[in-house]
């Protein structure tokens, strides 16, 4: 379990990192917390020729109050997010979700940007950012752009990031603590990736629409139109049937996931129950 040979870069500034990404277009991987990339490399399941370690780049760290949004640097560790009063006050749903991420040791190293860029369909962070209507800030040596989270996750472990781009931050509309939400997942053991999860984020002043996310099934976390409607109209028999249809369509393409249908339905019902005052 030793990685194949690679060249290690540790740029001190973002422009230097972006220059490396531009130079090695496609041949370089970004190393952030390393909680997924390093095991994959050790097992030789991924073999980047160039590894760009961004851990020394200070401008990628930290949480900033940017008016109606919080901007969280890509290198911000889960444990910092859990400790931050800004998050507790303005994004309690994110805190609740991250408490489900793995274990202390992993939360001390793992970063929000790394998790978004990896786009694991069972991970809490991508699903939660989808529910929170986040915008992903990506930069290349050509400039910066913002990508709506709705357009960011393209498929299994695949995102809208270009080969020469680095995810630098995520910008999330504040969500006052008094606005209700529901985060519910089922994992075999505490800290495991979810078998399935449901996130409900009803509309509020900062986000005009109800957002409901199903994760842990299919190739990526997805919004559920059926649940978003149910958040206004209640989980009627029709809404359940619509949700069942949505979920069945997703898991039909996910080998061995058929058993998850009743799990998602149960979680959806319970999550809806939590929204009740």
């Amino acid at each position, binding site marked *: 379990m*030793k*990685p194949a040979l690679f060249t290690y870069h540790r740029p001190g500034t973002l422009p230097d990192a972006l220059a490396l990404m531009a130079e090695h277009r496609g041949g370089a991987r970004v190393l952030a917390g390393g909680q997924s990339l390093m095991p994959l490399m050790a097992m030789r399941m991924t073999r980047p020729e160039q590894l760009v370690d961004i851990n020394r780049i200070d401008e990628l760290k930290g949480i900033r109050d940017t008016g109606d949004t919080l901007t969280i640097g890509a290198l911000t560790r889960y444990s910092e997010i859990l400790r931050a009063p800004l998050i507790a006050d303005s994004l309690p749903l994110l805190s609740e979700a991250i408490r489900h991420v793995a274990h202390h040791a992993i939360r001390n190293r793992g970063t929000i940007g790394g998790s978004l860029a990896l786009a694991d369909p069972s991970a809490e962070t991508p699903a939660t950012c989808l529910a929170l209507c986040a915008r992903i800030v990506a930069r290349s040596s050509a400039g910066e752009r913002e990508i709506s989270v709705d357009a960011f996750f393209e498929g299994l472990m695949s995102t809208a990031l270009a080969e020469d781009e680095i995810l630098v931050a995520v910008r999330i509309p504040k969500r006052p603590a008094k606005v209700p939400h529901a985060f519910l997942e089922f994992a075999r053991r*505490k800290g495991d990736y979810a078998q399935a999860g449901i996130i409900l984020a009803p509309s509020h002043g900062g986000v005009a629409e109800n957002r409901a996310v199903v994760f842990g099934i299919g190739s990526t976390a997805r919004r559920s139109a059926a649940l978003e409607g149910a958040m206004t109209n209640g989980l009627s028999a029709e809404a359940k049937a619509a949700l069942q249809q949505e979920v069945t369509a997703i898991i039909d393409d996910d080998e061995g996931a058929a*058993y998850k249908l009743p799990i998602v*339905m149960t979680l959806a019902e319970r999550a809806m129950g939590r929204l009740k005052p």
Partner: protein
Amino acid sequence: MTTAPAPAVGQSLARPRAKRLVTGRGRYTGDIAAKRALQVAFFRSPHPHARIKSIDVSAARALKGVVLVATGADVAKHCKGFAGIHRLFKGMKAAEQWPLAFDRACWQGEPVVAVAAETRAIAEDALDLIEVDWEPLEGLGTPEKAIAGGTVLHESLGDNIGYDGTTASGDVEAALAGAAVVIEDTFRFGRHTGVCLEPRSILAAYDPSDDSLVVHESHQCPAQQQAIFADLMGLPEHRVRVVCPDVGGAFGIKQQLYGDELATCIVSKMTGRPAIFIADRVESFASDIHAREHVVKGQMAFAPDGRILGLTVDDLFAVGAYSNYPRSSIGEASHVAALTGGPYRIPAYRARVRMIYQNKPPVGHYRAVGHPIACAVAEQLLDRGARALGLDPIAVRRINQVPDGTASHKSHSGFMLNGLTVEACLGKLLAGFDMAAFRREQQDARKRGLLLGLGIANFVEFTGTGAPYYGESGAPVTAQESCLARLEPSGHVRCLTGTTDQGQGTDTAVGQAIADAIGVSFDDVEVISGDSAGPVGGGAWASRGASSGIEAAVRAGRALRDEILRLAGLILQRKPEQMMLAGGLLCDAASGAELITLREVATIAHYRQHLLPPGTQPELSMTRSFVPQSQSFITTNGVQLSVVSVDPGLGDVRLLRHRVAHDSGTVINPMLLDEQIRGGVVQGLGAALFEEIHYSEDAVLGTGSLMDYLLPLATEIPDIEVAHLATPDPGTSIGAKGAGEAGTAGAAAAVLNAVNDALAPMGAHISTLPITPERVLAAIAAASSSHDTKPGLQG
């Protein structure tokens, strides 16, 4: 006048090793420095079953830093083949094995080519350059597929059935025909393995100048390994030495021979350099021995009052591509035949066991060999019978149990079970447990949509293997234990034991026993184990350290004490029998008056022999041995209780309580004993709910890491309450019966019974381990589709 210090036996003394291990000063095989050592990595078969048409290693050989690339044919020139036959089992068939595959690979992960390089990374780079031209063959995944009459794995054997044996007593057909209720079911047990913190590791150093081989190996049985390496490699046995330094868990995984480990020894011989192989986690799942792939059909027949009239068991035991060498792989199935229903009086019994070859890694002797299977089958059939008859499952157990104090009860399987305490253990288990309150809580929870369940599992266990079992096998496995006790000039004692310690604390228990036997304090005894050049012993397996290992230590300790008393008598001109040795002091036996320190005696005996009477020859090293000569096993028993919750919407099972009552014989170290039981329970809980190595029907491996092989974590495990009976075993001085496997033996069965108790109101039940959410949901779905007219969950 001094008061004798309290005996060490019976005290919860901390393990001296523990401090070293937890402070990072462990000396594992991977920590042993060896100059010029080569790192060995193995190219493993990507196919479950495939013919090797050709192997091209030229690019791998050309890589800078690679010293040797050896194929199966290259390695086979330096050793004999081997086959895992156990001659006690008449008609057993096993194919010959070699360190590496050379014409055919029979499981995914089987080692095919060995690469030795300056670093492990270079060795792995070289693996990428090896080209094998494969001709894939049909892979046999399940045992049913293997006996369906298709592909024969080893043509020389004729079929895929390595052993087919039946044990019977009484008239089973009459029992089934005359029963009020017959419960019949097929139980499936998934493959799992013992996940050691320290993976398999070996450092082999062959010296061509004297044809010697020194091996450091993470293993349970150094003496066995010495014999095997010498025999298979054609080396003089007295020049082969196997040292097992600190071993980070073994659980039976490190008890037999692995082809890759023998190949590592051969790499050292071929290169003249030390060679080290440390399995990584990925290859551990693919190549460590596995356990417990059984499909068991069981029937239990009951009289209207709950008496068991008869029991049948038909076990298809899928052992992988080969039978392990040297002990064979039959153990699990033979224990199923011997132990199913063991705690009960059963007038009619028939057990058929078949050992089936298929395209998976060999199954070996994982902790509690076969016991969890035997326990789960019998205890679940019993619970279902009680339910069908409308009787209390505890009452049904009580009317069937072998009465306590029966000195020798010949079981329905023909084994002598001595001094069982089934009823006393059950009483101890239930003492302080408010069953009525639990049943009320269960009713209340149902109204909230939560299912609670309680399960009980009785088990009989075999520990302390005696001479007949392996004596008959033909394998170089000794049931004997030896111990050398040496008096140092300072009066301290150094003890070398043939039994070994993989973290369970055997060394500590040996130290306690020998300290008392001699009459010194525990702190003045150092125990050294794990060296085949020391006193010969079997090592660790079958919970034998506390019985056989300690008995040898006690005998060595007493012999040394007698010699010390003799020498002190000569020095003091007193009769030895009028003195005693306690706490490192020689005292007058009658008055307790202090006469001389042990240190003074030791100093004279080592350095001042001229002061002793003419002709005195001090003997300051005493070696004694012990073998349980005539009985195959010590027998003992225990019982476990599990309380679970089942969330029927998610299929989620949570463990709420777990209790164990066990008869370990005399308790040597209560703390170590409790933790042995708890550790064993946790492994059993893993088997119950989490641990499974997935294979397809075609035997393609689907489990690659600890991400998809779920071990129970502290967050999933409830407090485990442990109670002991301490009925001394009459066969040894101290009377310890062993406890390493009791926890694992009954834990999964207790959980299975608890889950089925929880599911009973829905008309659902589970017969497959591990109990995953998927299986729970499927059971509920099956029950609701077949019982549409019956009431479902109330409330």
